C-alpha cells in the first residue's frame, strides 16, 4: 500500500518535471494570450516608482509600463521589485518585462536581454550636508557613505574611491541614516537626488560633486526573447522620437536631463 502511494507521487513529480521542460513558449505570445502584461518596477524609489496610500504603484516607470501595455492592447499588472531580486524575477519568468531603474552594464547583459536604445540615464552623485564642504570625490576617502544594497556603483566606490560603504536595504533607511548623521553623504542616482532636494527639509543639503559613472538605464526582457526585445526596441525609439520621456520628466518634477534631449534629437 505504501509502495503504491510512493509510485503515484513519483510519477506525478516526473510528469511535472517533464511538463516544465515542454512548456517553452514565447513571452510575447504568452502575454497576448493571457491578456495581461506583468512588469516589474520599483515601489520604494520616488519619483520613479512608489506607492500611493491605496497600495497602487505610481511614478515615472509605471507610466512607461502603462504605455507598453496600451501598445500591446493588454492589461497591466505591476510587481514591486528591488535591486537584489529584479534580475532573478525576470529570469524565473515571474515578470515579463523589467523597468526598474537598472543601469545597463556588460555583466548584466550576460544574464538578461537589455533593450537598445536605453530609455534613461543618470550618474552617481552624493547628497551631503552643505557644512561638510565637499568639493571632490577624493575627500570621501575613508569616510562613511550611505549606499543602497545591490547598486552597481557600490563596488567601484568602495574599491576605487576608498569609501567606507554603509549599505541599507531601502531608500527610507538610507535617507534616515543621512539625516541622523550615521554617514557623511548618500551616494545615489543624481536624478533621484535632484528630485529629493526639491523638498524643504533638505535645504541644508546639497549635491556638490560632479556626477561620475554616467550610466544609461536599460529595460530588460528575459534572455533569448528576441521578438519581445525587438518590439520593446521599437517602443523605446518611439518614446524618444515623440518626446514622451521628457513629458514624463515634467509630470514627475524631474529635472530635465541632457540624455533625454540628446536622444530626442538623435531619433527625430
Amino acid at each position, binding site marked *: 500500500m505504501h509502495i503504491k502511494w510512493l509510485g503515484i507521487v513519483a510519477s506525478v513529480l516526473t510528469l511535472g518535471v517533464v511538463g516544465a521542460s515542454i512548456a517553452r513558449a514565447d513571452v510575447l505570445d504568452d502575454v497576448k494570450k493571457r491578456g495581461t502584461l506583468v512588469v516589474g518596477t520599483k515601489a520604494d524609489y520616488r519619483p520613479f516608482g512608489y506607492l500611493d496610500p491605496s497600495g497602487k504603484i505610481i511614478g515615472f516607470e509605471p507610466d512607461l509600463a502603462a504605455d507598453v501595455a496600451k501598445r500591446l492592447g493588454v492589461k497591466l499588472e505591476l510587481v514591486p521589485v528591488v535591486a537584489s531580486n529584479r534580475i532573478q524575477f525576470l529570469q524565473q519568468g515571474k515578470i515579463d518585462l523589467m523597468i526598474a531603474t537598472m543601469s545597463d552594464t556588460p555583466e548584466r547583459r550576460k544574464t538578461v536581454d537589455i533593450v537598445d536604445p536605453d530609455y534613461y540615464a543618470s550618474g552617481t552623485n552624493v547628497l551631503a550636508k552643505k557644512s561638510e564642504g565637499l568639493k571632490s570625490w577624493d575627500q570621501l576617502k575613508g569616510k562613511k557613505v*550611505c549606499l543602497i544594497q545591490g547598486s552597481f556603483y557600490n*563596488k567601484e566606490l568602495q574599491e576605487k574611491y576608498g569609501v567606507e560603504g554603509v549599505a541599507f536595504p531601502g531608500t527610507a533607511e538610507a535617507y534616515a541614516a543621512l539625516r541622523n548623521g550615521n554617514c557623511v553623504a548618500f551616494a545615489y542616482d543624481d536624478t533621484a537626488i535632484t528630485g529629493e532636494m526639491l523638498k524643504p527639509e533638505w535645504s541644508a543639503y546639497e549635491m556638490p560633486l560632479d556626477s561620475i559613472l554616467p550610466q544609461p538605464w536599460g529595460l530588460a526582457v528575459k534572455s533569448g526573447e528576441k521578438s519581445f526585445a525587438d518590439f520593446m526596441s521599437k517602443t523605446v525609439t518611439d518614446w524618444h522620437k515623440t518626446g514622451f520621456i521628457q513629458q514624463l520628466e515634467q509630470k514627475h518634477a524631474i529635472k530635465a536631463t541632457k540624455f533625454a534631449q540628446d536622444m530626442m534629437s538623435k531619433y527625430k
Partner: protein
Amino acid sequence: MQVVWEWFRWLHQTTGINLTIFYDAFDRSRFASGLWMTVKLSVTCIVLSVVIGIAGAWVQRSRLRLARSVVHWYIQAFRNTPPLVQLYFFYFGLGSLLRTPGGSPWVTNVAWAIISLSFFAGAFNVEIFRSGIEAVPRTTVEAAEALGFSRLQTYLRIVFPLAFRISLPALNNNLVNLVKTTTLAYAIAVPEMLYVSSQVWSDELNVPEMMNVLLVAYFALVGVLVYGMHRWERALRVPGFGT
C-alpha cells in the same frame, strides 16, 4: 595558500561554480571581515545578555514593587515584539534623538545592534534564570540564612551557582538563537556575514553558491557553540538534579 585559491578559480572555469570569496582578493577580505564581525557580535551579545539576565533575575526578586514591575514590563515588551522592529526602533528612532551638538550620532550602528540584541536575548535569559532560581530548594536558602549570609551573598554564592547549572540547557538554546539572530543586523548595515554575502552576490551574481556558503558557515559556527556548551553542561552537571 595561493595554490588553494587558484584551485577555486579552476573550479569556476571548469564547472561554473563561482566561489569568488576564495579566489578574488577583495571578496576574500570582505568575507573574512564579515565572518569576524559575526563572531564579535555573537560573543559580545552573549556576554551582555547573560549579565542582563543575572541582573534582571536579581531585580525580579526585589522587595520594591516598582523595580519588579519595571523588569516585568521590560520582559513583556522585548518578548512580544519582533527583534527586527526593535533594531529599527533603536537605530533609526532613538538614534535620531541621541546626537552630539555637531549632529553626528553618539552610538554607531554596531553598538546599537549589540544593545538591541543583548536586550532581546536578555529578556529571555531573565525568564530562564528565574525558573532556575525557583528550582533551588528553599531549604538550601534557609540554611544559608541560618549561617548568616546576607541576601546578596546568598544570591551570588549559593542560589545563583545552582540556578545557573540547572538552567544551562535552556540557556544554551537561547544563546544558539542569539547567534542566529545576529543576521538581523544586516538591515542596519552592520557588516556581518549575511550583509557581506549579499554584497558579494549582487556584485558577482553568484547567489546559489553564496547561499550554500552561508548555510555551511552558520552551521559550523553554531555547531562550535553547541559543542562547547554541551561540554560545559557535562562538566557542570549537579548530581541528583535534572536528567
